């Protein structure tokens, strides 16, 4: 602490320190917000909810200043927080859907927000991924969108590598079944 800081007094120091923290936290936000939004969007298929999940993940992860010290691990922390929040959201949505299904028979499920210009096959593939159970969906997105190896996926999903392998295998089997025509180049 220099002479200038001492002359400034404790309140001034606190303010400066608060300001520096806000700046640092905002810089972290800038670095991570967009990539995490993309990850959440690919999993959820809902732009507004994806942004809200990322905001919540950033708030949770960086609420305590002490957690920001380990900046090298920020990527892993944030990714795990986003995935956990997205999985909870999917589970909650599934329960809501079951309840709604009993109340509103025949009401159509909300379709994901996709770009009308998107290639038809890619849209079909994404739609099939969005129908996978939450853990399989998260594993598939981490593998094919984030390009993570199985060990890192296991770390994010907090399970064993064997479980990741079995979840990916189940997901592939389901997708192959669903995407038969798209895989073979047929029309749907």
């Amino acid at each position, binding site marked *: 602490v220099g002479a200038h800081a001492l002359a400034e007094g404790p309140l001034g120091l606190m303010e400066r320190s608060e300001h520096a923290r*806000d700046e640092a*936290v*905002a810089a972290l*936000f*800038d670095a991570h*917000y*967009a990539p995490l*939004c*993309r*990850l959440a*969007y*690919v999993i959820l298929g809902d*732009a*507004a909810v994806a*942004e809200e999940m990322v*905001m919540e993940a*950033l*708030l949770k992860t*960086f*609420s*305590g200043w002490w957690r920001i010290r380990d900046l090298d691990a920020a990527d892993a922390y944030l990714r795990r927080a986003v995935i956990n929040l997205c999985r909870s959201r*999917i*589970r909650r949505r*599934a*329960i809501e*859907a*079951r309840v709604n299904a009993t109340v509103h028979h025949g009401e159509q499920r909300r379709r994901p927000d*996709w*770009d009308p210009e*998107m*290639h038809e*096959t*890619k*849209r079909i*593939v*994404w739609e099939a*991924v969005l129908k996978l*159970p*939450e853990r399989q969906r998260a594993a*598939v*997105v981490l*593998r*094919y*969108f984030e*390009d993570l190896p199985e060990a890192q996926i296991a770390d994010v999903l907090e399970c064993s590598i*064997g*479980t990741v392998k*079995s979840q990916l*295998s*189940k997901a*592939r089997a389901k*997708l*192959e079944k669903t*995407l038969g025509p*798209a*895989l073979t180049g047929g029309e749907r």
Partner: protein
Amino acid sequence: MRDLDRLLRDSLKSVGDAFAPSDPAAARQRYVERRRRRLFTMSFGSAAAAATAIALIVYLTPASDPDVRRPALDVTSRFLTVTESIPVGDAPSGIDIGEAGVWVANSGDGTVMRINQTFNEVAETVDVGGEPDDVAVGEDALWVADPNRSVVTKVEISEAGGAAEQTEIEVPLPQQHLDIAFGGDAVWVVAATEGILYRIDADTDAIDRWDGARLASDVSVDGDGVPWTLGRHQGRRIITPSAEANVTSSRVITDASGDLGTTRANADLAAGAEHLWVSLNTGRVLMLDPGGPVVAQHDVGGSYTGISVYRGLVWAVTGSGDDQGSGMLTRFEDGTGDRVGAPLPLTGRPFDVAVGRTGIWVTHNSSDSVSRLRATSD
């Protein structure tokens, strides 16, 4: 497969790369403000929480009673009380706990029921037919054993926690008692008459058999996914581990040197983190080192039994088989082998017990109900 990998990679990257958050600058501002508010709330919340925690510790510090073991887990409190009695189907037998509820096999009406743990009521009934005797909850599916039809029914659990799709898997044997357990990405089934251990792969449903289990009548999977079987060899009960959850190879048979008795029926095996536990139809509960010898035993009475392990505690439910259907639930510590607290007398022919994060659950075979229990200190 390579086509699918490429298709997934191309499609998901295309979706993600095309997406841009709506207004990052506004979101950044919102984030900074929300973080400041949350930190402010947290600083006051922490002080209040600390005060509450201190008050609770003072309030809950146990009296100096040497018989009472009362570590952090509330299920160790001295007295057990039935808090809920939930009507289920006809003759409930096996019970297991899953993420979305407690699953019960009703052997009298061919159904399996899911109990909602929040509302303490049956949330779902799945008709599997036959006489389902036992259930095991896996990661994505429920496995139901029917000894009379020699069929294991796989019920896929939906992402919301309910039942989705049923697949019947036939265990290739005549009528047998089947004991069933899940662990190590597989379901393990014992067919008692021939004493063979079967492994059903949880992903592919492929069945392997292992003849080395030596007249096995019960199976339990430990925390490493290794199945242990309780069986018989040369007139003596034995416990056998199969190596690394792989039925095609085996380790040395652990012989309990006759301490487990010689009869075959009505015994149950549970693999704890430190010891193996066997409850016998003679009313004895034994604790064994995984290496072999019996290191503790207790007489709890009764003529049939179910046993379960959860977080270092072993729970044995025993029934007397009398007209009143009386029985007892007794707890032991897996580390020391000591009894914990006082046993709880039960009625309605208590049959099986499952213990998990949400409490202690017992099936009552003659009163067609499941009771939920909690531990109290007075």
